[in-house]
């Protein structure tokens, strides 16, 4: 197929406001949306011809139900846009044939029910189907082995290149320039800002640059100084097209996730493709020159695993003849999510790549949000899960990428969405802490977080589900495969939880991001006062919890700040913030270079000594007085433990329990760990993992960054006003928070206890479940866990008040939550009553040697 815009301009202007590199569907959409928002001087550069990279061979499916609501919202917008463009005379090949999805297992069906519950509040029409109803929708589908399915009437198939050309043409009609045959050779910067682009056709000055070069994006990222990290790797991706055999044109798009395959009608035959469990990476040593409208040699042997499933699901294909087996490259990312946003390395350098084979479906929404990001400084919705700043250098390692994308291609489709704690198996054990050999030997089950191996829990015995069973390749090994209910580690976590509340435990917290900030004079204090919303000008040795707000008052970060010296601070924030936190700080640093930031994450090992017996245990091992009188909470002292000195001990645990986090210079970490373990024997010391910590914090109603705290939520909405000092001089977000303080809030974080839920038989909430107030949708779950003291499932979530007519948010008060309100949660189609809390519940404190506290709740079963 020869696809091209007929009247491309071929002379390069000397200047533009924004230069977009990549003439695929993403670049076209970004140009269109920037033009739509009224921007002029938009120049799109394409090294070959429009759509010649990977867009031209895409299957063109627009299925709105994706594995997360971020992606679902993006595709939902795309669908509406392509339909609209078609109506406006920009043909996109829009064919609203609906989509039919089948489930082979109960777990798969349950995941659909969860998705249906979520889609309902996103205004997407979805129907659950019985196997018979699936047959009625399409007689092609084999149904004797399925448990059910879904019918999504508004889903569609398009012609992929037409979608791109439609947006490119519309963009051109609004004044954007499109230049084909123009390859970017160098991206120019000045003072870490974009200044221009060097191409084979000359140099163009610009203020903004967008890298949407698809599978070329990673190598384009290397063409600037500093280099920009775009972690993606190409893989082979297959579909076959049969000769016609009387397939109806309006046959729905069919998806069989358990069989990794999808189908659409194609010229009276079927196009069938898929996402095999083990993919074949390609172009490890670079993409060949002039790979325009290029395809890869077909490897039938590799395709067989898909062919088997294709012939199974649509038996009539068995006797069909092949028209073409197509093998085209697609690029995938380490976590199978897009890469969007402003690159942390260069200001005004934007990236939109790594579409993980859903580029056509996503392009509309991605283009819209990228335009917002460029014009408004941030997108209109929270895109953290797909933000380019979630990566660190490790992710851009080519061999890491090659090994990981083998798995992510299949996982993108086969993996059961909404399955709690999914984890990848490939490219693991890359980033480990000094105590990893000990925790590993203790049998920890690990989860990878930003490359770090983090212990989740410690089974006493090697449990059956922690195996290398190849049949469970794409499924989490953290939990028994396919469970949405009570996790198998429930009792293990319970014992760790109680050990934290009554005894003493060690939790390795080393993955947390650690930064040092300093200056010669007071500059660092002034700087931090400006970027933090709490008062950070506290005596040396104090630890301050503070948010860092954006101009809307939302959270860019939530940190613990230790003042180590008059003019230096030690900053701790979540693991996932390693890149983003520095990006935010550097953006606001004084231009004179007076404040320095250093990333010391790898220099310190952090061990959380948690529990009421921590004080007595540590007292045995150090000369420092650890008593509450001498060492109160939220303070830090430099102590020695055993033979190791220079340890920063902070009296806080991020869980509401008593204890210390020890920041140990890494060379002493193993000694300290072993010393604590040996001395702790009589205190019943043991390892604990993140699941115990998670249950502790959710029960105590602690909000965490990335779950509850986001750029779109403010301290006032999370009952964290006490950490905001509106009376201090100007800081980022102050005006917005003052305004909100005056006007009131439209959403509030609430803790819910789930009632009437059978722990053993009912599916558990995890994240994203809709919450209803008096029958009306009011918000979704941000995180959930089990409260072992309250003996209830607990969910955190924001409650909004949506006007039933205008669908707009209205102001809410505590009364809206606490009075005349009946809350319910929808878990996979079934509703359960919720009990709301706006303040942390009082939990009975555990006994500490000399203090008597009566117990009010029975804890043991």
């Amino acid at each position, binding site marked *: 197929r020869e696809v091209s815009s007929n009247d491309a301009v071929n002379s390069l202007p000397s200047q533009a406001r924004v230069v977009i590199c990549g003439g695929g569907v993403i670049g076209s959409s970004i140009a269109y949306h920037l033009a739509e928002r009224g921007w002029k001087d938009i120049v799109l550069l394409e090294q070959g011809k429009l759509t010649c990279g990977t867009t031209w061979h895409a299957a063109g499916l627009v299925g709105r139900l994706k594995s997360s609501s971020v992606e679902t919202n993006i595709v939902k917008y795309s669908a509406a846009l392509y339909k609209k463009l078609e109506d406006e005379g920009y043909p996109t090949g829009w064919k609203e044939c609906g989509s039919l999805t089948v489930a082979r297992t109960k777990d798969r069906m349950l995941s659909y029910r969860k998705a249906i519950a979520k889609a309902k509040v996103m205004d997407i029409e979805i129907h659950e189907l019985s196997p018979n109803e699936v047959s009625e929708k399409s007689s092609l589908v084999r149904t004797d082995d399925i448990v059910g399915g879904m019918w999504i009437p508004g889903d569609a198939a398009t012609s992929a290149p037409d979608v791109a050309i439609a947006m490119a043409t519309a963009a051109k009609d609004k004044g954007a320039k499109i230049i084909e045959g123009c390859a970017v050779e160098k991206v120019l910067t000045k003072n870490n800002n974009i200044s221009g682009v060097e191409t084979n056709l000359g140099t163009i000055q610009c203020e903004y640059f967008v890298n949407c070069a698809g599978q070329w994006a990673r190598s384009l990222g290397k063409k600037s100084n500093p280099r920009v990290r775009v972690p993606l790797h190409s893989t082979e991706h297959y579909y076959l097209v*049969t000769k016609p055999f009387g397939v109806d044109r309006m046959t729905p798009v069919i998806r069989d996730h358990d069989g990794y395959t999808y189908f659409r009608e194609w010229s009276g035959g079927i196009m069938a493709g898929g996402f095999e469990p083990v993919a074949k990476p390609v172009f490890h040593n670079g993409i060949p020159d002039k790979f325009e409208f290029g395809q890869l*040699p077909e490897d039938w*042997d590799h395709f*067989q695993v898909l062919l*088997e499933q294709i*012939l199974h699901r649509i038996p009539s294909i*068995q006797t069909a*003849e*092949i028209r073409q087996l197509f093998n085209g490259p697609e690029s995938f990312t380490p976590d199978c999510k897009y890469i969007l946003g402003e690159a942390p390395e260069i200001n005004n350098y934007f990236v939109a790549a790594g579409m993980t084979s859903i580029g056509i479906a996503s392009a509309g929404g991605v283009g819209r949000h990228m335009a917002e990001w460029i014009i408004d400084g941030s997108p209109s919705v929270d895109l953290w899960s797909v933000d380019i700043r979630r990566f660190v250098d490790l992710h851009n390692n080519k061999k890491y990428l090659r090994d990981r994308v083998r798995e992510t291609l299949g996982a993108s489709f086969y993996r059961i969405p909404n399955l709690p704690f999914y984890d990848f198996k490939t490219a693991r054990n890359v980033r480990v802490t000094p105590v990893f050999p000990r925790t590993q030997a203790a049998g920890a089950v690990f989860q990878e977080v930003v490359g770090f191996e983090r212990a989740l829990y410690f089974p006493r015995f090697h449990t059956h589900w922690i195996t290398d069973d190849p049949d469970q390749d794409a499924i989490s090994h953290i939990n028994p495969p396919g469970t949405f209910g009570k996790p198998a580690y429930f009792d293990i976590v319970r014992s760790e939880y109680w050990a934290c509340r009554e005894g003493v435990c060690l939790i390795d917290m080393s993955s947390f991001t650690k930064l040092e900030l300093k200056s010669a004079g007071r500059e660092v204090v002034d700087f931090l006062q400006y970027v933090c919303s709490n008062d950070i000008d506290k005596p040396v040795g104090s630890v301050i919890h503070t948010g860092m707000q954006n101009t809307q008052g939302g959270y860019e970060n939530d940190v613990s700040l230790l003042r180590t010296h008059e003019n230096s601070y030690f900053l701790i924030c979540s693991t996932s913030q390693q890149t983003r936190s520095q990006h935010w700080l550097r953006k606001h640093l004084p231009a004179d270079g007076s404040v320095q930031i250093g990333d010391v994450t790898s220099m310190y090992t952090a061990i959380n000594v948690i529990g009421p017996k921590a004080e007595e245990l540590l007292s045995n091992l150090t000369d420092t007085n650890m008593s509450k009188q001498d060492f109160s909470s939220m303070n830090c002292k430099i102590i020695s433990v055993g033979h190791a000195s220079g340890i920063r001990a902070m009296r806080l645990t991020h869980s509401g329990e008593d204890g210390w986090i020890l920041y140990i210079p890494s060379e002493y970490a193993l000694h300290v760990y072993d010393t604590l373990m040996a001395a702790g024997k009589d205190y019943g010391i043991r390892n604990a993992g993140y699941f115990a910590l998670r249950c502790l914090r959710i029960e105590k109603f602690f909000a965490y960054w990335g779950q509850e705290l986001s750029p779109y939520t403010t301290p006032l909405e999370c009952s964290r006003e006490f950490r905001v000092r509106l009376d201090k001089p100007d800081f980022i977000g102050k005006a917005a928070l003052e305004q909100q303080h005056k006007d009131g809030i439209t959403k509030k974080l609430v803790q819910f206890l789930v009632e009437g839920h059978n722990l053993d038989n009912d599916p558990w909430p995890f994240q994203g479940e809709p919450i209803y107030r008096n029958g009306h949708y009011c918000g979704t779950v941000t995180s959930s866990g089990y409260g072992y003291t309250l003996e209830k499932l607990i969910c955190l979530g924001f409650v909004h008040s949506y006007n039933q007519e205008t669908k707009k948010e209205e102001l809410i008060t505590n009364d809206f939550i606490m009075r005349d309100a009946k809350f319910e949660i929808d878990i996979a189609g079934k509703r359960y009553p919720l009990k709301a809390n706006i303040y942390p519940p009082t939990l009975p404190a555990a006994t500490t040697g000399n203090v008597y506290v009566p117990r009010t709740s029975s804890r043991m079963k």
Partner: protein
Amino acid sequence: GSTLSYPKLTPQQVSSILRNNENTFELKRGKSVRSFDTNQLASNDPIEDRRSEARLTQTDGLMFGVFDGHAGCACAQAVSERLFEYIAVSLLPPHLLDEFNHALKDRLPSVNTWLLNWYRHDNDYFNTSMASLYRSNLHRYVTEMLSTSCMEDDHEFVMWDALTSAFVRLDQDISTEAMPGANGLVINPEMIDIAFSGTVACVAHIDGPHLHIANSGDSMAVLGSYDEDQNRWHATELSKEHNAQNLTEVKRIKDNHPSSESNFVIKNDRLLGQLAPLRAFGDVRYKWQHADLKKLTMAMNTPYAQNFIPPNYYTPPYLTVSPEIKYHRLRSQDKFLILATDGLWDMLSPDMVIRLVGQHMTGKQTYDPYVPNKGVKLKDINSVLLKRKSGIENRAIDKNSATHLIRNALGTSEFGVQHNKLSLMLSIPQDIVRLYRDDITVTVIFFDQDFLRTCPA
């Protein structure tokens, strides 16, 4: 020596040593042989094994040979260069023999390729200094054959006789060339080297479905067949090793000499207590008359002249080159033939060798991408792909099956092929390496199934 606790060689070094002499030839379609793999690994320095492969230009057959030399490589080198020519002329019908005679006489430049097209490895060489002597002796053989065939009107070709006469005639020529007096008592040291060293030979001649093996000595030819019904590989030995373990062979030798000698003729599993193979080219010390040997000893002044004549040397010749010949008509279940010197058979059994190559072959087939034929149904494509799956699992790291065999011969331990063991076997000091492994030469000849299935009787 000290035991190595770490591998001395890297995996890349191991592979490059193992692959240094490997060679693969894909042949034109429509013949019984589709391709062949060869490889050699030296233990002696220089290696004493030789191998040859050639196509017979006039009769369209193929010849493959492995030659395991001893007491140096001179004889093996000479036989590897000359034997195929002797066989080739033995196969020529009178009118072509005559034509060749003229070509030789007129010294036509095309004479070099008139008989044979060689398949060569870059490391192979010809002994150019002897070429004209070799040529003139071949010419004499040709003229003698022409005169014999002219005398016998009803001459009927017998493959057995042709192969045997080629072997025997070449051995005679080697012997005569070294005889003192043949050149007016001028002793050519190269000729002496050739005749006083020796070599065994195992040669396969393949034309269409007709396979002949001519074997003299302790190399071996084994046929690999696949039994579809039982889903099993089967090894058929197409030659017998001529050594002291072969009782028929021992009996043959004892019967050829007075019973008084029976205690000496095979002693310590060796001929006259000295020579391991019981048939061989060269080795004139076990063939010449006592007097001839004596004469040469006097004419020469070599350090090894002292022990020139073996002990108990009463009724020579004790040694013959006359080959044992076996015919096999190839069937469609016959997948490949392996010729190898005893360096391989010392380490791997024929069954094991056939299994290894069988697996390798199913793996190798999948190196070629599958391309479905036009008009084929998708379900049929799927069943072909399912069959290929097991082959893909068997893909070996060496594409060359001979290399695959040598790697397995050297590296197999109870945990499969181990790098540590390979490294150890390939880094043994030269002065003791021969205690651990012999020179290894392997040729694997793959048959064309389509040809064998449809070829006429």
